């Protein structure tokens, strides 16, 4: 209780760790606009975050756990600083969300659909000791628990990039060739495929391809 009163008097100390500069700056700009915010620190990597003293005084740390060492950081920072950790990432498949929560995250937010209002709400919830997992992510977790016969809702539309990659995979091209053909790195192709598998609620690439062909998505 004392800690809460201290916080409301002094304002919240926030810290954002995200390797994507534009998005990180956007998160910081949004957080700086909250009247509860006393300070907003930023780092672009786990290493830079540990090197920043303000991390240890933070009340809430926002982390993209998809970055190198991100998941370990979620677990370690909660222990080292006592901060509430909120994961904010594009990597929000069932496994990724569960891993984040198991690592000690108080909340998980999906970048793809995050609004400034939802971010403000999540930070306020975390400050009051409540966890936040957005309803769409909860649905994703619950879908994983659904019995086999359960019919899943229609899949989201694929982006142009996802369509291009999945079409080439469907035509039998290996990841390396897809990367060459589209002038992407192999890592990008793998990331895109991972997103597609998640988006289509598939368990594998081949299942995603089959689903996409069946639904006319590619």
């Amino acid at each position, binding site marked *: 209780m004392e800690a809460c009163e201290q916080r409301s008097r002094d304002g919240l100390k926030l810290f954002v760790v995200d390797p994507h500069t534009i998005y990180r*700056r*956007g*998160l910081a700009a949004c957080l700086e606009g909250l009247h509860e915010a006393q300070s907003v620190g930023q780092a672009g990597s786990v290493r830079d975050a540990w090197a920043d003293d303000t991390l240890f005084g933070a009340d809430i740390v926002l982390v993209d756990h998809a970055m190198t060492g991100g998941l370990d950081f979620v677990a370690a920072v909660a222990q080292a600083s006592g901060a509430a950790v909120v994961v904010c990432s594009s990597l929000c498949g069932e496994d990724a969300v569960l891993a984040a929560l198991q690592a000690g995250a108080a909340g998980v937010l999906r970048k793809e659909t995050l609004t400034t209002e939802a971010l403000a709400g999540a930070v306020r919830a975390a400050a009051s000791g409540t966890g936040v997992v957005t309803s769409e992510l909860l649905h994703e977790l619950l879908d994983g628990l659904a019995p086999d016969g359960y019919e899943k809702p229609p899949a989201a539309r694929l982006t142009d990039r996802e369509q291009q990659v999945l079409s080439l995979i469907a035509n039998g091209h290996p990841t390396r060739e897809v990367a060459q053909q589209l002038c*992407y790195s192999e890592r990008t192709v793998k990331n895109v495929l991972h997103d597609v598998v998640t988006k289509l609620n598939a368990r594998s690439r081949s299942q995603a391809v089959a689903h996409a062909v069946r639904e006319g998505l590619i």
Partner: protein
Amino acid sequence: MSDDQRPRVLLGDLDPIARLGMIAVLEEDGVDVIGEEERPEALVLVTGRLQPDAVVLDLDSPSARALAERVRAASPAVTVVLWAREEDAMEVLDPGAPTPRRFFSGLLDQLRDELRAVAGRTAG
């Protein structure tokens, strides 16, 4: 940078957090963010009215390329930049060019260079 060389940029359908970040970073770099419009119809109209040097759109959006082509059809002199949230890809559609130029690394620096170059061209 003199005023007539400051790039004038309009932000399109980037998600709200990315848009805030884009404004913060570009304005620090001396870029004039002259507006934001996420609705496709309105974006095409506003681009026509304001004639920015460049319009920045969301590469992750399912309709990214279609929207880019609509903007270009209505405002042929504008450069369209497609920006991926994860900063792993950027596409630049130069006026009149049939295909985009693609970038995959050092994207923030590339974006700055592209906007500076485009402002230099239109000022000259």
